[in-house]
C-alpha cells in the first residue's frame, strides 16, 4: 500500500527520532519505561533510602545516639532537658508494680523513640532490626526464585514423570496454609537448628528463617513458571527451532530462559514484599529472628507488653514495614507494567 503512495504524502505520525537511533532491545525498552514511571521511581527511591538508613545503623548507634542496642540497660539514666531521668520508671498504672520504659524524647541523639522494656534505645534497634528484616527478605527471595525457576523449568520442559513428580510436591506444599507450614517448620527447627549432611545451621541463626521463608513460597513462583514454559514450548519460535534440529538444551537456554527471566524479574519486588511480611509475622510469633538479634517483627513483639503505655515501641517498626512493603509493591506494579504489559502475572 505504501509503495503506491507518493513519497510527499508521508503520514504525519512518523517518528524521525526513533528512525535515527538503532532499535532498542526489549530490556532497554522495559528499563526506559520503568524509568519514566514516576510512581515506581519514587517507590524505588524510598526503598533505597530505607535500605541506606538501615545500613547506617552501626554509625547511628555509635556516633549519634551513643548507645548499644543489644545489651539491656535497666538501671540506666539519661539526661532529658537537663534533668537526669531513669530509663525505666516505676509504673503509674494499677498497683504501681513493675516499670514503664521512658517514652519518646524526640531528640535524635538520645532515645528518639524511647526505650523498650529492657531499657534499650528503640530507634537504634529499629535500624538494626531493619538490616535483618531486609537481609532476610532479600536472601530468601533469591533462594525462592532460584529453586522455583529450576523446578518450574524442569517440570514444564521435560514433562512426563519429572513434571508429575515436581507438580505433586508443589501441590502438597501449596495445600498447606503457607503460613502454618512456615510456622511448623520454624517451631521445629528454631530450637535445634538443622544438621543434614553438608547443610548445618545452628539454632538462632538468621539462615533458618531465610531458608524456611525461601522454601514455602516456591510454589507461588514455580507454578506460573511451569505454565509459561508449557505455553512457550508450543510457541512458533520454539517449534521452528525444534524443526531446525536445534538441540533441546540450547532451546532451553536460548529461547525459553530469557522469556522466563522476565517473569522472574516481575516477581522480585513482589516476593521481597511478601517475604518481608512473612518474616515479620514469624518474628512477631517469636519463631523468626531470635534474641538478642532484632527485626521489625521482634520489636513489635517487644512493644506488645507496653502497647497501651508506650505505643511507639510497637507502632514505629510497623510503620517501617508498611513503608518498605508499600514501596516494594508500587515498584512491583511498575516493573510488571514495564515487562509484562498484559499483566498476566499476579502474585496470588
Amino acid at each position: 500500500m505504501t509503495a503506491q503512495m507518493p513519497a510527499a504524502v508521508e503520514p504525519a505520525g512518523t517518528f524521525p527520532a526513533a528512525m535515527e537511533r538503532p532499535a532498542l532491545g526489549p530490556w532497554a525498552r522495559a528499563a526506559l519505561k520503568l524509568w519514566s514511571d514516576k510512581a515506581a521511581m519514587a517507590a524505588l527511591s524510598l526503598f533505597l533510602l530505607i535500605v541506606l538508613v538501615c545500613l547506617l545503623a552501626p554509625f547511628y548507634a555509635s556516633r549519634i545516639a551513643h548507645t548499644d542496642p543489644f545489651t539491656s540497660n535497666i538501671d540506666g539514666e539519661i539526661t532529658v532537658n537537663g534533668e537526669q531521668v531513669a530509663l525505666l520508671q516505676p509504673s503509674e498504672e494499677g498497683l504501681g508494680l513493675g516499670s514503664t520504659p521512658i517514652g519518646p524524647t524526640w531528640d535524635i541523639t538520645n532515645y528518639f523513640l524511647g526505650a523498650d522494656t529492657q531499657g534499650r534505645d528503640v530507634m537504634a534497634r529499629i535500624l538494626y532490626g531493619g538490616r535483618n528484616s531486609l537481609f532476610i527478605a532479600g536472601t530468601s527471595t533469591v533462594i525462592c526464585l532460584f529453586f522455583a525457576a529450576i523446578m518450574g523449568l524442569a517440570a514444564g520442559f521435560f514433562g512426563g514423570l519429572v513434571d508429575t513428580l515436581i507438580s505433586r510436591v508443589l501441590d502438597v506444599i501449596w495445600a498447606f496454609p503457607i503460613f502454618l507450614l512456615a510456622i511448623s517448620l520454624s517451631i521445629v527447627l528454631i530450637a535445634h537448628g538443622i544438621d543434614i549432611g553438608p547443610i548445618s545451621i545452628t539454632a538462632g541463626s538468621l539462615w533458618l528463617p531465610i531458608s524456611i521463608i525461601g522454601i514455602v513460597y516456591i510454589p507461588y513462583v514455580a507454578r506460573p513458571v511451569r505454565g509459561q514454559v508449557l505455553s512457550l514450548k508450543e510457541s512458533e519460535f520454539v517449534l521452528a527451532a525444534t524443526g531446525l534440529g536445534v538441540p533441546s538444551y540450547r532451546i532451553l537456554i536460548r529461547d525459553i530462559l530469557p522469556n522466563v527471566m522476565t517473569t522472574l524479574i516481575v516477581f522480585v519486588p513482589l516476593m521481597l514484599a511478601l517475604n518481608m511480611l512473612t518474616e515479620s509475622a514469624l518474628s512477631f510469633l517469636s519463631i523468626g529472628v531470635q534474641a538478642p538479634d532484632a527485626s521489625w517483627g521482634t520489636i513489635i513483639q517487644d512493644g506488645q507488653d507496653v502497647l497501651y503505655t508506650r505505643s511507639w515501641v510497637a507502632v514505629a517498626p510497623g510503620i517501617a514495614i508498611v513503608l518498605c512493603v508499600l514501596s516494594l509493591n508500587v515498584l512491583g506494579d511498575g516493573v510488571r507494567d514495564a515487562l509484562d504489559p498484559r499483566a498476566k502475572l499476579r502474585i496470588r
Partner: protein
Amino acid sequence: MLSVLIRRLFQMLFVMLGISIVVFLIFFATPGADPSSRIAGRNAAPETLLAVRHDFGLDKPLPVQYYLMMKHLFIARDLTSFVNRGQQVIPEVMEATPITLSLVFGAAFFWILGSITIGVVAAATKNSPLDRILMILGLIGISMPVYWLGEVVNLITQARLHDTWVFSWVPPLGYKPLTEDPWGWFKVMVIPWITLAVLYIGIYGRVLRAGIVEANQEDYIRTARSKGLSETRILLRHALRTSLIAFVTLFGLDFGALVGGGALLTEVVFGLQGVGKLTYDALKTLDLPVIMATVVYASFFVVAANAVVDLVYAAIDPRVRLA
C-alpha cells in the same frame, strides 16, 4: 463431570494423605520431640519412660504408629493429647471451629462488600483522582502486617479512644458464642472482621478493577454499548460479571486457607481461641495428636476449596478444561 469429580476426590485424598505423612515425619525427625519423655515428666526413671512408651504405642514402628494415630483420629475418634493427659483432640478442634468460622465468614462479608465497591467505583472512574486514591488505599491495605494493624486498632479502640463515645461500646478482647449472646458476638467480632478484611479488600479491589478495565476492551462490551444499554448496566451486568471469575478463584483459595488456620495472627492479636491459635499452641508444645488433627482439618478445607474453585470455574467458564 462425574469422572472429574471422582478424580478430584482422589486427588484430594492423596494430598491430605501426603500432608499428614509429611507432618508426621517432620515431627519424628525433630530432635528433642520425643513425646514419651514429655509425657513421663521431668527426670522420669527409665522404667517409667519405657512403660509410657509402651502404653502410648511409641515403641512400635513408625508406619504402625501412623496407622494407629489415623485410626484414632478418623475411626475411633478418641485421639488424646500427648501434653494435656486425657484431653481429647477432636472436641478441642470442634470447640475452636465456630470461632474461626465466625471470624472468617464475617471478614469475608466485609471484604466482598468492600472490594466490589472499591473495584467498581475505581474502574468506573478510571484514571480520575478518586481511582488513584482508592488504588493507593488498596496498596496500603495490602502492605500492612495484619497483626500490627490489629495492635494499632486495639490501641485505639481499647485504650486511646475507648473512653470517648466512638469506641466506648467496644467490649474487652475475647469471644462470645453467637448462640448465647448474638449482639455481644457481633460487638466482639466486628473489629477483628474489619481488621482481617482490610488486606483482602485491597487485593480483591485491585484485581476487580483490573478485570473490569480489561473487560471494557472486549467485543461484547462494545456490542452491549451499541445496543444502547446504559453505562451502569454495562458495568454491573456485563463487565463486572466476567471479572468475577478471577474473583471467585481467589476467594475460594483465600477462604479455604483462612478457615484452615491462616487467620492465626488475627486470632492471636484479638485473643480468639480459634483453630489457628490451637495449632500454634500445639506446635509450641510439640503436641503431635493435636497438630495432626488440626493439620488434617486445615488441609481438608484448603484442598476442598481448591476443588470447589476448579469446579465453579469450569461451570462459569466453559473454555476452561480441567487438566
